[in-house]
């Protein structure tokens, strides 16, 4: 890899127009109908589910295997043209925008589950496998993959953004659940990191370096994932509170007692109202609400639930509404997963963006309550929802994109939330990643460490072609 020793080109890549045209010609020749340049396809590949971003790719290619991805990256490397990996476009932070044009590598056709090893509790999948697809294919093995961001994202995208979900308290995030990767490096070589072994102290932890790197160091093409046995017993409960504070204090105490609750989700009164309407939930009020799920043996689940009820009673929680039948549980969690869409449906026509603060659990009450007061003061509709067990919560801020005043208030609120979280020893991005929207916040939070991230980016991608303009400010 002689390129790694070459002096890094630090300027934003402005690929030569002729080079780009030649590259597009070459890719269309090599990939035929799997290399598309129509405006509609390029537009679709320019943004995720968050706000629309400027930046159309010049061409979208749909590779079928690692070798094709490597070949595409090699061409881009030679021509110094940006490469942006694309899954299904559910990112909220503009990860997939082609800020400097270039090639969007759509991995959705690399969607095979390659192997499932029940005895080792792991599996290997291609990057384009969807999380719901994986769990459907695991049905019958007695195993499941727990990480569940709201969207039905690809496993590759989830790894690249270090996604989390509603049950991170018990199962961790992608950081804990990716055992190994196949990655195409910036010069188009295929490497494997980590592996089947549960622990290894050989070499640096490249697996975790690529997990969360948002495609800026290489393209993840295969993922070795940790799987879990489907618990013997699962029960889900809903508890409503007179005050938001009561709900948050319940979470804090539950975590301190070490109750191994699998999921614990907070919805404030506004979000609960939205979910009741959008998902037609019956028997609930528009109040601060906690959704719980307990996993384990029959005895273990009963014990956890009893402990939890003792705590909720202390903070003015209602009696639990139980959902033990799988279909009732599914309906409940579907409602939770649809929270973003429910919030959006409150004011059709308005734009929405999601904040992503995460604070140490001991500061959660302060952060949530101050933020709620702050949001109320702006006069904007901004429901709160969060996987509060790990200190992470989101506001879906609704605003009229054509009203500059409203936009400014929304942006101000988002900025204050980030700074508040950082001031409390937390982070501005618990799980959505940096993308383009949070580059400044990263610098505020990490200081000197950002210099190191920058140096690593330059060392592994000296030509700055891998998803340029994202994750780490150069």
């Amino acid at each position: 890899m002689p390129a790694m020793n070459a002096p890094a080109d630090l300027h934003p890549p402005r690929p030569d127009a002729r080079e780009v045209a030649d590259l597009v010609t070459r890719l269309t020749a090599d990939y035929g109908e799997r290399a598309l340049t129509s405006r509609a396809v390029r537009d679709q590949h320019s943004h995720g589910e968050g706000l629309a971003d400027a930046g159309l790719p010049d061409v979208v290619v749909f590779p079928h295997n690692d070798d094709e991805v490597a070949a595409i990256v090699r061409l881009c490397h030679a021509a110094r043209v940006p490469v942006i990996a694309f899954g299904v476009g559910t990112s909220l932070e503009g990860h997939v925008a082609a800020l400097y044009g270039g090639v969007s590598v759509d991995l959705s056709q690399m969607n095979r589950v390659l192997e499932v090893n029940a005895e080792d509790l792991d599996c290997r999948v291609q990057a384009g496998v969807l999380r719901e697809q994986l769990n459907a294919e695991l049905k019958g093995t007695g195993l499941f993959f727990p990480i569940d961001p709201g969207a039905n994202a690809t496993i590759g995208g989830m790894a690249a953004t270090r996604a989390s979900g509603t049950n991170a308290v018990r199962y961790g995030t992608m950081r804990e659940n990716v055992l190994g990767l196949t990655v195409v490096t910036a010069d188009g070589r295929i490497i494997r990191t980590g592996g089947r072994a549960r622990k290894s102290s050989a070499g640096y932890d490249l697996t975790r370096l690529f997990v969360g790197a948002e495609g800026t160091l290489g393209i993840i093409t295969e993922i070795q994932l940790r799987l879990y046995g489907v618990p013997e017993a699962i029960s889900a409960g809903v508890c409503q509170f007179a005050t938001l504070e009561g709900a948050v204090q319940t979470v804090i105490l539950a975590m301190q007692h070490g109750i191994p609750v699998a999921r614990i989700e907070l919805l404030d009164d506004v979000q609960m109202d939205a979910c009741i309407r959008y998902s037609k939930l019956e028997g609930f009020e528009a109040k601060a609400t906690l959704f719980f799920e307990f996993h384990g043996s029959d005895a273990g689940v009963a014990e956890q639930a009893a402990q939890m009820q003792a705590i909720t009673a202390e903070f003015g929680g209602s009696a639990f509404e139980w959902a033990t039948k799988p279909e009732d549980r599914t309906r409940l969690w579907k409602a939770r997963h649809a929270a973003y869409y429910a919030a959006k449906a409150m004011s059709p026509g308005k734009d929405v963006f999601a904040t992503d603060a995460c604070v140490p659990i001991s500061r959660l009450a302060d952060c949530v309550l101050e933020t709620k007061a702050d949001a109320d003061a702006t006069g904007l509709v901004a429901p709160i929802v969060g996987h509060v067990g790990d200190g992470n919560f989101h506001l879906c801020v609704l605003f009229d994109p054509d009203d500059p005043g409203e936009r400014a208030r929304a942006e101000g609120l988002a900025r204050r939330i980030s700074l508040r979280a950082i001031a409390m020893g937390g982070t501005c991005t618990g799980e959505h990643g940096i993308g383009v929207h949070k580059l400044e916040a990263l610098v505020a939070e990490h200081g000197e460490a950002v210099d190191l991230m920058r140096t690593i980016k330059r060392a592994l991608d000296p030509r700055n072609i891998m998803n340029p303009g994202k994750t780490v400010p150069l």
Partner: protein
Amino acid sequence: MWNNRLSGGSAAPTIAIYSMLDPAVHSELASILPASALLTSAEETRPYECDGLTMYRELPAAVAIPENEAQLVEVLRRCHGAGVPVVARGAGTSLSGGALPDKRGVLVAMAKFRNIVAIDPLAQTAVVQPGVTNLAISVAAAPFGLYYAPDPSSQIACTIGGNVGENAGGVHCLKYGLTVHNVRRVRGVLITGEIVEFGGDSLDSPGYDLLALVHGSEGLLAVTTEVTVKLTPKPQTAQVALAAFDDIGAAGAAVAAVIAAGIVPAGLELMDRKATRAVEEFVHAGYPLDAAAVLLVETDGTPEEVATDMAEITRVFAATGATGIRVSKDERERLLLWSGRKAAFPAIGRITPDYYCIDGTIPRRALAQVLLRIEELSEEYKLRCANVFHAGDGNLHPLILYDANVADESKRAEAFGAAILELCIEVGGTITGEHGVGVEKLPQMCVQFRPAELECFLAVKAAFDAKALLNPGKGVPTLSRCAEFGKMHVHHGKLPHPELPRF
């Protein structure tokens, strides 16, 4: 690499070797540190000449013992400026030569960083300096009903700074994770003297996962000055079961069956007949002597959870052909059953003049196959091999028994070990589960990783330490090097710090 290898037990040179440190650098360091914290004579630096891998010894040009971060920053900054290598050292319990000094350089001993800075029972974290021992954290957290979960067997001596450097595991990491899973934040100093915070107090930290990079980096990226560890609520109760098998393959299959049954035991260890016999003679824990292999499995949690898990575990063991199962009835019996496992290495040391300890990890389902293959290799190389290891993780520690005084036994033992490591790689495993690469396993790195992968490692190293001054010559081999396999040699059962439990 081999020119600094001394055969175990040979006499130390008697002539004093004078410091080779550049006088200008020496006077700069002397201006930073008190005289008692800068050692240069051979008599003073001798205690630092090796770590737990005693076959490699080297006197550093100087030993610096900074008292605080400001002094450390200055030491690193001056060494960086002068191009002098620096090796950081905790308690010196590394089994792969991670703390082996560089003869041209300064060994930085972190022994004075021994404070527990803060314990936050609400957030369940502790902020500690790197020289605090692993066990001391749990002792300090105990009044709050908390403990620090990773427990390498040397936990009474090894320090948290070293644990981060090696990403230490332990018997209970199957359930509670390795060091990387139990550390929130590391504060460290780069070779340039720059202070960097890796990770943070909240659960997720944006940007590249530098915190994970520092873990297991074997002191090649930064010198740790403060660590925020996650504390875990103590389980209400724990119980251990000992199961005997008359076939080692069946024991390996039972391990996979327990995990596949959805149980995550707190610990799951395997010992073969050679190991159990040696142990039983030594500690009299009541292990069955006729079994081909025994499994020790621990489950912890609330009494209900423990009872449920234990019932399932005994069911799985019976179904996989266990010939006898003994479940601890009380805490005394639980500790007695574990005592044999903890004493396994010293026990083996009593029955053989020398042994090699191998440290490979394999996917669990290959356990039975690999154990049977090791038995075949044992006959092929005409050397005995005892197995005692973290079976739940698939982390093998085969001990090859030999006598260095018998012609060609050392050679055969090395070849046997190499064959085992190749076997680990062949079934999709790795050449080191928990002891690190250090100087010991550089050659095998070339076997396990392809050039493009090694180049990524080197690029990461260069990003942190462009002049390659921090712990040089360890961890990641340069591309030009690829050669023989090396292993840990233990001569006449003499481990450094023989009082410490190992592995």
